[in-house]
């Protein structure tokens, strides 16, 4: 975009500033607009699952404007703060939570090279920033000067931090399959028909995807893992004392995180912006052919990714209103006794699959024959390290990477 603006004669630095601001505002609108849409969707889905209708009056038969009405109501509410609360921390907590959720969108690609900042360590960055949301929660719980808020906050923090471990292990599997942590490259490698998605790469990755779903739902504190905001036990957990606009920031952060982990699942496992049928390639278009065609392809990719992420969010809503809530000890048991060992075993399995069957079960059908790993540089002596320059599947044994180059 900076190039586009410079074409208008703007100086370079101003173009960069405007481009950055546009990207930031776009992401902010995605989160806010998404939250608006998802709140309405949640109420409708909850209603239908519970065999009732949901909002039907505001804005026509389907209650389209219900979210807007909710927003206006929240804006008009009185801004309360408990008497013994630490003022600075109380006011700061929602913004810390929201910032963590927002910052993670910087590295998320929405289409090929439509990304706020293309980081080489994209996956790592997103998972790291997601883990920072817990600070907002802890601050909110502490600053509310209420025992129940503090307990809710501590439970939620313990849960989020515990589930980061299996989440990290689940996320490493697509990284291993792609050979890079760059989210754009991971999405690129899943181009083609839906069979090239990592979800269908091998059975281990398939299981890892479902473990990822479990850990992601636990990470964003959605039911059945939402005991931190359990209405029947803790009033509202850490955000009990928050009202009006401050509370809505927490909600935006929660829906933003839900969208983020769904979009991350889409990029890592479900092909990212590549649709199940490669329409653009079949039509002969690609990102390289002329401006308008490239924009159309990117738009298609954008629609694909947002569609998949939305499906993920709807899935989370579905299981929220279907499954009963877990107790804290059940949450911890699921994490430590089930998710982590299964993720570790599946990771080992995926690693062995990659080593022994790198081209898949049916060579030539699923994976391209030539696989050049990004970043396998040439050594100073000029000879290729590992198989960086070779075309063809990685040879399984005896010719491994470490054997071709001595450490000294």
């Amino acid at each position, binding site marked *: 975009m900076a190039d586009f603006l410079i074409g208008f004669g703007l100086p370079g630095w101003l173009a960069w500033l405007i481009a950055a601001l546009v990207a930031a505002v776009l992401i902010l609108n995605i989160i806010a607009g998404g939250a608006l849409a998802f709140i309405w969707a949640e109420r409708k889905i909850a209603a239908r699952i519970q065999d009732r209708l949901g909002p039907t009056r505001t804005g026509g038969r389907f209650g389209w404007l219900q979210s807007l009405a909710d927003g206006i109501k929240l804006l008009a509410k009185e801004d309360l703060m408990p008497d013994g609360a630490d003022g600075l921390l109380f006011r700061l907590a929602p913004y810390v939570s929201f910032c963590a959720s927002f910052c993670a969108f910087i590295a998320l690609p929405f289409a090929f090279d439509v990304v706020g900042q293309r980081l*080489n360590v994209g996956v790592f960055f997103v998972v790291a920033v997601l883990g920072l949301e817990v600070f907002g929660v802890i601050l909110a719980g502490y600053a509310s000067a209420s025992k129940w808020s503090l307990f809710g906050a501590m439970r939620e923090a313990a849960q989020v931090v515990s589930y980061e471990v299996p989440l990290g292990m689940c996320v490493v599997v697509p990284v291993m399959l792609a050979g890079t942590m760059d989210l754009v490259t991971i999405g690129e490698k899943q181009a083609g028909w839906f069979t090239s998605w990592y979800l269908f790469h091998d059975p281990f990755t398939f299981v890892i995807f479902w473990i990822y779903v479990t850990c992601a739902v636990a990470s964003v504190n959605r039911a059945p893992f939402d005991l931190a905001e359990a209405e029947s036990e803790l009033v509202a957990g850490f955000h009990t004392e928050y009202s009006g606009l401050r509370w809505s920031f927490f909600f935006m952060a929660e829906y933003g995180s839900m969208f983020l982990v769904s979009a991350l699942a889409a990029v890592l496992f479900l092909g990212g912006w590549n649709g199940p049928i490669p329409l653009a390639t079949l039509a002969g278009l690609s990102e390289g052919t002329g401006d308008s065609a490239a924009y159309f392809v990117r738009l298609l990719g954008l629609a694909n990714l947002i569609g998949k992420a939305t499906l993920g969010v709807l899935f989370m809503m579905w299981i929220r209103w279907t499954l009963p809530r877990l107790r804290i000890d059940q949450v911890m048991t699921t994490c430590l006794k089930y998710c982590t060992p299964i993720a570790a075993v599946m990771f080992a399995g995926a690693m062995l699959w990659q080593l022994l069957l790198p081209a898949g079960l049916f060579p030539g059908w699923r994976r391209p024959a030539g696989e050049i790993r990004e970043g396998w540089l040439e050594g*100073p002596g000029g000879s290729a390290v590992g198989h960086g320059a070779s075309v063809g599947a990685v040879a399984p044994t005896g010719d491994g990477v470490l054997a071709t180059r001595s450490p000294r």
Partner: protein
Amino acid sequence: MTGGLAMGTFDVGSTMMLDTLLPMAAAGQWPPLALPSGAFALAAVNWHSVLFLLFAALTCGFAVAVVAADNVVRMALYLVFSLGSAAGLFFLAGAEFIGAMQLMIYVGGTLVLLVFGVMLTAQAPFVSIKPSSSDRTLAAVAGASLLALLLTAVFSVDAWRGPGAGVVPAPSATPLGMALVGVRVDDAPAGSPVTGRSGYMLPFEIVSVHLLVVLVGAAYLARAKRRKTPRAIDAVASSEPLDRVAAQVRAPGSPSQAPGAANRTAGGSSSALVGGGR
């Protein structure tokens, strides 16, 4: 992948600046040795420098705030912001993996642990423990002299004073990963006399075992213990005067602890997590 700075859309700006600045630097005209006479000429704003100054101000400011704050919870919050801004500085220096690592492990792990500890021990008397004025003077003198010493050392080497390079190919995390497995694939830094560099497999394994040992040790140290004599914290929670508490704790075999005190303790066990709703 245009080979620009790892700042995405900043490529064009930096290229433009490079065309003008590097020849001037080569000719010795840049940076100027005296203050520029024409105030802040915004002919070209180097966003890298602006962002660096922003993050550096945040880091240093919040670090000083940690020292200056009395409330331990606020100290923890300021430390979180300071280390988060330090991660931003790491990103700006091109060490993307280290920046992400700082965010995930330091801020997202170590500081969460610290904040948990603060929450567990932040009972009313201990939230703000003010040091005496003589301690403050001592700390001020020690801090000022140390800062003067460090700054003198920092400014003493001429080779470190020059401006940066500007445009460098975007870094990749693969050489770092390969180095940790024991294989060095990166080129030796330009001008470096180093030959025959080793991988880091042994330190990697040692640190893995070290972390395991620390995990077991810390879990053992902080375990919930079954006690016959009342703990000082239980007696405090039962709101007895502190002298009698100390006497009770030092004399083993004293009367049993208050039955409800166990629910009110907030340290060392997972009762804060589990027992809250009971």
